[in-house]
């Protein structure tokens, strides 16, 4: 891709961002509050420049889907958001706080407001489902009362449709169930932002659809703002208020699902085929 082509794509992306902003505004009933603001973010691992110049906003209450080939830096971007990785250049603000400038305690407090669903679910495999869900309650919310803890655990398991899995070990759960429990463990802290790292990867189409609908219900029921990283177009179609396409560490397009699906650009439309 030569420089001129890149510039054209960037300007198209900016134009589409305007439309997207309107879409996001509509999706959240008039609110334009930005919860995550990323500007000119870059990150390298040795000589490998994974993120070149990422700029994106996440509005309150919207679902932003990030599409892109493997290795384009999607997961790196959301790991920077929670401070698991540090960017080399650029600004990354969550709730108006620059993540890099936060102290250890401030970062911990910020992380409580952000949920992160890992690709594998990342359940603690030496603990039962109940212990997995109680883990953040005990340590983050400092809840000691057993009854209250059980109530919260049962409530959230009901919410993800797995009330019977409470005493099971993660090894006894299917891939879809693990993702649901992973989501429950994240949601139990009632985060304001959710970051989903490929939530439907490795699942059959029916389970993928169930997980996608679960993501949508989390947005509707709790008003959560989410960034969803996925390759699954069916999932993107269900959950997205706005879609952003990344390629080679850069944002190449931004818009609604329908706008990008009908794009004339071969690279963009290839994601939707």
């Amino acid at each position, binding site marked *: 891709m030569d420089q001129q082509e890149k510039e054209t794509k960037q300007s198209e992306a900016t134009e589409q961002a305007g439309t997207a902003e309107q879409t996001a505004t509509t999706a959240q009933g008039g609110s334009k509050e930005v919860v995550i603001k990323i500007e000119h973010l870059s990150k390298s691992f040795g000589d490998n420049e994974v993120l070149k110049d990422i700029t994106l906003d996440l509005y309150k209450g919207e679902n932003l889907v990030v599409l892109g080939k493997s290795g384009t830096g999607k997961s790196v971007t959301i790991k920077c958001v*929670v401070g*698991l990785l540090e960017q080399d250049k650029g600004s990354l603000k969550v709730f108006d706080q620059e993540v890099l400038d936060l102290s250890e305690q401030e970062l*911990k*407090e910020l*992380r*409580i407001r*952000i949920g*992160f669903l*890992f*690709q*594998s679910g*990342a*359940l*603690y*495999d030496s603990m039962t489902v109940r212990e997995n869900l109680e*883990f*953040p309650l005990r*340590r*983050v919310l*400092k809840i000691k009362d057993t009854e209250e803890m059980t109530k919260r655990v049962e409530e959230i398991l009901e919410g993800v449709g797995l009330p019977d899995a409470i005493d099971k070990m993660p090894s006894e759960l299917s891939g879809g169930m693990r993702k649901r429990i*992973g989501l429950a*463990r*994240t949601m139990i*802290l009632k985060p304001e932002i959710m970051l989903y790292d490929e939530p439907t990867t490795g699942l059959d189409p029916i389970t993928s659809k169930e997980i996608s609908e679960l993501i949508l219900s989390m947005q509707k029921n709790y008003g959560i703002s989410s960034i969803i990283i996925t390759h699954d177009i069916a999932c993107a179609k269900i959950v997205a208020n706005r879609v952003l396409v990344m390629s080679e560490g850069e944002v190449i397009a931004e818009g609604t699902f329908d706008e990008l699906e009908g794009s004339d650009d071969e690279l963009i439309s290839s994601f939707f085929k």
Partner: protein
Amino acid sequence: MDQEYTASYKKILVEAGNQVNFMGSFFRNIFRMNFEWNEFVRQCYMIGYKSFPIIGITGFIVGFVMTLQSLPTMKEFGAESYIPKMVAISLIREICPVIIALICAGKISSGIGAELGSMKVSEQIEAMDVSGANPIQYLVVTRVLACIFMVPLLTLMADTLGLAGSFVAVNVSSDVSGILFFHKAFNSVEFGDLLPAVIKTVFFGLAIGFVGCYKGYNSDRGTESVGIAANSAVVSASLWIIVIDGIAVQLTNALGY
């Protein structure tokens, strides 16, 4: 060529810096609020109680074999009555601490390395971190402290069973009463023999736990790295045990113990 040397020196310095940093966060987290007592007790059970059989058998056989091997020579000099004294001092001062620590490096350090390594690979440690919990306090502090407490206890148990093994070996070819044997053994051991050995095992425990945690916690991605973490944990912990033992011997000699 110079660049290669520079790169490898840099790598060594970075690794040393990371280890010091990790050690620092271990010590900082010991004194933080909300110590994970339940996990600490669970780790003591896993590290200590579950190691009883292998440590017990090893201690007994070391005492038994040592006595059988030295008995003929001692008899030649008519010094077989010195067997309890010789076995007690060598087991308590040197043989049991080092052998038990090396076995613990193989069993415990590799276990911790593999466990934390697989947690890292499956993103469980990152999940703990992003949830706002403290993985160092929950995973590292509890395991290292459990090693520091349990390795000395396991060594003392091995000392006792080693003496029992020696008593059995003596009775294979002659008839010595238990009271006489243990009276002679314990009479020859002084506080100055036991204390340095116990202090030494505390540091062995620290090395075993710390190295296992460091290697596992900082392993790379991929299943291969779990094996590498476990393997390098054993090698590094064993090396540290030998180094600490060398330093401890010099120190005890200098202090007149």
